[in-house]
């Protein structure tokens, strides 16, 4: 037993100094502690919610915070649906515009009381109703590895149909729209893309079936697609990397994030096909039936404050929704970030109405290809 305790001592020893640092950094609340119980925030593991950011909110308002973590935007909606009879959270943060309408239609959200006048008008065009507040945004699009798509082995596609050609066999990976929010956003983009192309005989699901028949890989989440399969991203330095796909779904600013963390270097870039990207906006909203409304409104207001929202690109790797938002210039973040000229044209209402049918059609296309 003694050697084990020695091992434990060696492992824990380096951390003793950090404990003191954490204690030193504790702040004193400027207000009395709120007695209504903690503000329960249902979210996914949003990087923006740093210790400092949430700690400052608690210090300034007196509200304690309890985080309930889901996997992603889809997980948030599922938890809200499963616990609709007995809400477990006061505020939900992270539903995007592919899930928002479902949450509203199911009556999961309550009206908020947050001032959104300083939010970029184009963001509010997507949804400006009383049930949700936008807090970050980004464009979901295809990313490719410039070393693989070099014009010789593979050429840069000029149409999504190019990806169904033999040269691309087994070289694409997509997060599933059934389980991943970027996957769902891109699937929605393809619906719009093929509705607006010249060919009226085929639709998005014909393309998806052709993609599956051409060896496209489908993963449960964005992480597996980007880290394990995509050859152009940081996954190349992560254990277990396969690098078998030269193209994947991510954000148009992902190459900028890559550069930011790798000293202004990246092999990844975005594929800016007109209409083949999706402008994703993430929202926060009050959970219908929960009690702590005042605290929830205060938190959403704080999330939209200059000090928090302007820092979204660094803290949450997404763009701010405030007017005149820009990407940081440092380490090639802005240089490697692309802005699509034309995003998919889909209203939030239409997404809400048709998403289930699209998901079913996507599943059928996959089953047909595998049969």
């Amino acid at each position, binding site marked *: 037993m003694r050697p084990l305790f020695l091992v434990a001592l060696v492992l824990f020893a380096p*951390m003793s100094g950090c404990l003191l640092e954490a204690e030193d950094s504790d702040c004193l609340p400027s207000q009395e502690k709120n007695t209504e119980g903690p503000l329960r925030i249902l979210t996914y593991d949003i990087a923006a919610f740093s210790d400092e950011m949430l700690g400052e909110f608690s210090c300034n308002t007196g509200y304690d915070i309890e985080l309930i973590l889901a996997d992603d935007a889809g997980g948030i909606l599922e938890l809200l649906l499963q616990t609709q009879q007995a809400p*477990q959270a006061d505020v939900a943060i992270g539903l995007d515009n592919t899930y928002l309408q479902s949450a509203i239609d199911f009556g999961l959200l309550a009206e908020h009381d947050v001032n959104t006048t300083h939010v970029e008008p184009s963001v509010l065009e997507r949804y400006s109703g009383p049930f949700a507040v936008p807090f970050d945004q980004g464009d979901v699009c295809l990313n490719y590895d410039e070393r693989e798509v070099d014009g010789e082995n593979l050429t840069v596609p000029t149409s999504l149909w190019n990806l169904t050609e033999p040269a691309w066999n087994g070289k694409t990976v997509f997060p599933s729209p059934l389980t991943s929010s970027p996957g769902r956003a891109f699937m929605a983009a393809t619906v719009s893309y093929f509705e607006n192309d010249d060919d009226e005989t085929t639709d998005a699901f014909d393309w998806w079936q052709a993609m599956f028949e051409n060896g496209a890989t489908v993963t449960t989440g964005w992480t597996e697609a980007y880290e394990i399969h995509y050859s152009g991203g940081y996954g190349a330095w992560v254990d277990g990397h396969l690098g078998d796909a030269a193209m994947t779904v991510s954000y148009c600013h992902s190459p900028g994030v890559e550069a930011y963390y790798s000293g202004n270097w990246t092999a990844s870039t975005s594929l800016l096909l007109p209409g083949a990207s999706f402008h994703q906006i993430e929202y926060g909203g009050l959970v219908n039936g929960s009690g702590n409304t005042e605290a929830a409104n205060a938190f959403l207001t704080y999330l939209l404050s200059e000090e928090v929202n302007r820092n979204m690109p660094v803290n949450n790797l997404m763009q701010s929704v405030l007017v005149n938002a820009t990407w940081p210039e440092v380490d090639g973040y802005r240089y490697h970030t692309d802005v699509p000229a034309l995003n998919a044209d889909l209203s939030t209402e239409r997404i809400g109405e048709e998403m289930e049918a699209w998901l079913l059609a996507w599943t059928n296309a996959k089953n047909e290809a595998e049969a």
Partner: protein
Amino acid sequence: MNFADSRRPLLGIHPLQWLVLAFVIALGIVPLSLAFTRLWAVTGITPWEAVTQVYELPAAKDALTFAVLEATVSTAFTVAIGLPLAWAFGRYSWRRMRLKRSLLFLPFVTPPIVAAAGFLALLSPGGIVYALGIDLRGETGIIGWMASVTGWEHPGHFIALIAAHVWFNLSLVVRFVEPVVAQLDPQWEEQLRLLPAGQTRLGRIQHLWMPILGPATTVAAAYTFFFSFTSFAMVKWLAPASNTLESLLGEMGGTAGIEGYRVDTSLAVLGIATFQTVMMLLMLALAGRFERKHSQVLSLHHETANRKKHGAAPTAWAWFANGLLVLLLAPLVSVVVASFRVRSTNGALAGSEWTLEGWKRAWSGDFSTVPVYDALANSLTYAALTLVVALPLGYAVASSLVRLRQGGHRRVAGMLDSLCMLPLSMSAVMVGLGMVAGILRWYPDLFSFPYLPVVPHVMLVLPFVIRLLTPAMERIEPKFAEQASLLSLSPFAFWWHSRGSFLVVPATMAGSLCLAFSLGEFGATYLVVRVGSWDSLSIMVDQVGSRPKFDPFVLPTAMALATVLMVVTLMVLTVNERARAWRVRHEV
């Protein structure tokens, strides 16, 4: 505690014990029934209809084929490697046996995400396996050649998965088989050698070792098949192009059981879960049958005699066993190493540096993850509560089962025993769905109960506690109770002298297993945690490890948390082995 004087209206079992039995069985059946009822209501079709519809799904057919194949191969290799190891451990004396057994058992209670990270580190460039020229991950070199010659898709991933399953399940074979070898009366072998049938090694295997070790090996093989068949995280990380039924359920499970939303998913989950539950029940019934046979063989023999007679292991056996232990430790060591290593990139060039930053981050935590000491405190609290609840319940159930068997009601005991094992047959998705459905229906405020994760922990450890205590109770001679009854003892003193004192060590072993399982348990806790805000260490490892790794310190932080979890679990397992050593010394 003395039930001897109480009224026993039904099959010799006290009403209170029936109540406990009913509670334990309900703990398994209720969540499952609730999950099925909910899915049935949402889809509007019966489970059997769902099975026939799901059978049309290519993904489900592929998953079933893959699960059967990988589980069969995993079982064959686990037995082929585990049997000689168990034989060597049971037959010879070994230095630091307690530590060796603890290390051997560590993989079984290591959270799968930690194990997967350890294996990926070994298989990736910079890892030992890759350095040996075997590229199981990228499938180049000899593995790539194998794939192109045979047309077999991803042979490297399949081999990696089988290796991980063998690593995970090897301790099962040793746990079941080693005591049988150790307890075999050496005279049996000597006597057989004098007979014509025992002159050759083959003859001795046929006439001694196979009948003696067969039942224990079959039990271990059945459980190995069971755990490999339901593998989830290992498949997800090591064989990303394939699915088992369980991993398929895991992918779909989140949206299942919600009225008016993604009904197609509910239908698929209902069909797959029904099929898998039936298969699991059959397997468990089979394993239970073999296990009862096994416990009868165990009761015939004595400990230590073999080891004393054969002394230290010959060099070849020592190399084999110690070498295997080193191999078993390799994935865990890579986890520890990864906690101190961070990637450093300079343009296209990548390297690594040594750092304590991962440990510092793990220690301080952030707002979405509690500091490591808080997570550890949560984990230890859940584990302690699991122990406090599961041990008495397991004792009461084991006691009832033994009493039923001793009273001649073996069939009833067998049936109840199988029902108590139900939680093992359930998919984590169904446990989670059942719990959410049940809690919402009856007591929604329970979501605010800080110790809710203890419920699935108790459900999952109870079968193991019952399995440990039942054979120990069966070995207690009835004459002890007769002798104690002649003395004028208080009810507690009577219980202690006739039964309790003989169960101290098995109960200690069951207790430390409760702690170890609870510490490492991930699946069911995860599903409960999704509707609450409880951070245990195993959940934290997953949460941090699943973050996008643009930030190079994500992985070292996750691995630091995993290392803490491993060290604590190893300490708990060492207590278990101390208890076992005490039992051997005192011949309890």
